[in-house]
């Protein structure tokens, strides 16, 4: 038997081993465990604010704290909003208008964005003269930038259409770690609450959990039947939620290494573009291609609410750190704040 054939057999046998090991700890399903729990009551959120100002499709939004958020639009602007007053704190013109993602640093000092320029541009919001300028352009990806998230003021993680994720040193502009392993475009990433790991969702239909410091992929989760567009951590860091073009969302538990539940409905036939859990994790808000956002009871997998109000695809969604409200961004050029 050739070496290649031997390795192929070994790979198949290891995949079977993983499937068996996952089954072996499946003493109960999540559905069984919560059988006695009631579904949450109907959730009816109202639009409290509409953020107007972008002139084209909004592709991304990210909360900095519970008041300020940054949005990115293909009108070539990043806007930092005071969501309480709807005032624009900063309107930052971009070199490339083909932006696909944006991020706010936890410190509030910087924002970042990127897209079809294959770069992640970092902007300093707290420059001495008050002007917002490009601080660094992180270039090395050979595909579009789909998502970026700051770890701190000097480190940012990016995901790309080149199938890799990268941890960057912002000061030097260099790649500290390249996370390779996905077999399709990486579409989205999420950082764990403890900042030790991150998750990525890709067009190879899998989600991967990565160790930030040693660069290893620790776990891979399959089951989706199409591209994963959105990914996020359950608030306690022990589970991962994914949203896919296959019209479903899934919850994977990290410690039992398997999918626990799927959020889908025969009436929903369009892809999930974005998702965010509520503060307690009990609600999952997911944006879809059909202009709506569905609210799911995460434990019972039932739809308990809908956010309708946008006139085009909901492309991005985010819940404030204090859990007080959620923000949806749409191709209709508006952002809405709901609670």
């Amino acid at each position, binding site marked *: 038997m050739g070496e290649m054939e031997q390795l192929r057999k070994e790979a198949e046998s290891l995949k079977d081993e993983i499937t068996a090991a996952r089954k072996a700890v499946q003493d109960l399903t999540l559905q069984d465990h*919560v059988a006695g729990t009631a579904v949450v009551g109907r959730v009816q959120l109202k639009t409290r604010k509409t953020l107007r100002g972008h002139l084209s499709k909004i592709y991304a939004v990210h909360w900095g704290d519970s008041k300020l958020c940054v949005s990115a639009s293909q009108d070539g602007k990043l806007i930092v909003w005071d969501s309480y007053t709807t005032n624009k704190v900063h309107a930052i013109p971009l070199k490339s208008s083909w932006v696909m993602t944006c991020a706010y640093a936890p410190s509030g000092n910087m924002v970042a964005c990127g897209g079809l320029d294959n770069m992640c541009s970092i902007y300093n919001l707290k420059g001495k003269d008050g002007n917002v300028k490009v601080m660094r352009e992180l270039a090395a990806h050979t595909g579009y930038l789909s998502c970026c998230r700051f770890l701190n003021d000097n480190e940012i993680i990016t995901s790309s259409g080149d199938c890799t994720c990268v941890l960057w040193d912002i000061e030097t502009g260099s790649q500290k770690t390249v996370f390779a392993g996905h077999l399709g475009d990486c579409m989205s990433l999420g950082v764990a609450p403890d900042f030790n790991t991150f998750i990525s969702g890709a067009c190879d239909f899998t989600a991967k959990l990565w160790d930030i410091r040693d660069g290893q992929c620790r776990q*891979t989760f399959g089951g989706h039947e199409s591209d994963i567009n959105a990914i996020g951590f359950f608030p306690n860091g022990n589970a991962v939620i994914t949203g896919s073009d296959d019209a479903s969302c899934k919850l994977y538990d990290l*410690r*039992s*290494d398997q999918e626990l539940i799927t959020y889908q409905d025969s009436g929903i036939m369009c892809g999930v573009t974005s998702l965010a859990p*509520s*503060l*307690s994790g009990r609600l999952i808000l997911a944006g879809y291609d059909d202009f709506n956002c569905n609210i799911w009871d995460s434990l019972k997998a039932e739809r308990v609410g809908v956010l309708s109000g946008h006139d085009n695809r909901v492309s991005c969604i985010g819940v404030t750190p204090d859990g007080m409200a959620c923000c949806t961004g749409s191709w209709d050029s508006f952002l809405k704040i709901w609670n």
Partner: protein
Amino acid sequence: MSSNSNLTTMKRTVEQLKLEASVDRIKVSQAAADLQQYCLQNASKDALLVGVPAASNPFREPRSCALL
């Protein structure tokens, strides 16, 4: 040359699968219980779940009281 790189890729795939196979797994009953418990413990703080009174909602205009 390309058969060498295919071999290298395959070896890397096998090493990665070995790593993923060796992960410690807890019982699903334990995982489910912990998820549910986290939801319950934090439910009262979850504004989107339990609602927020108008007076303490930073996104609503405060109503002013006119004292005659």
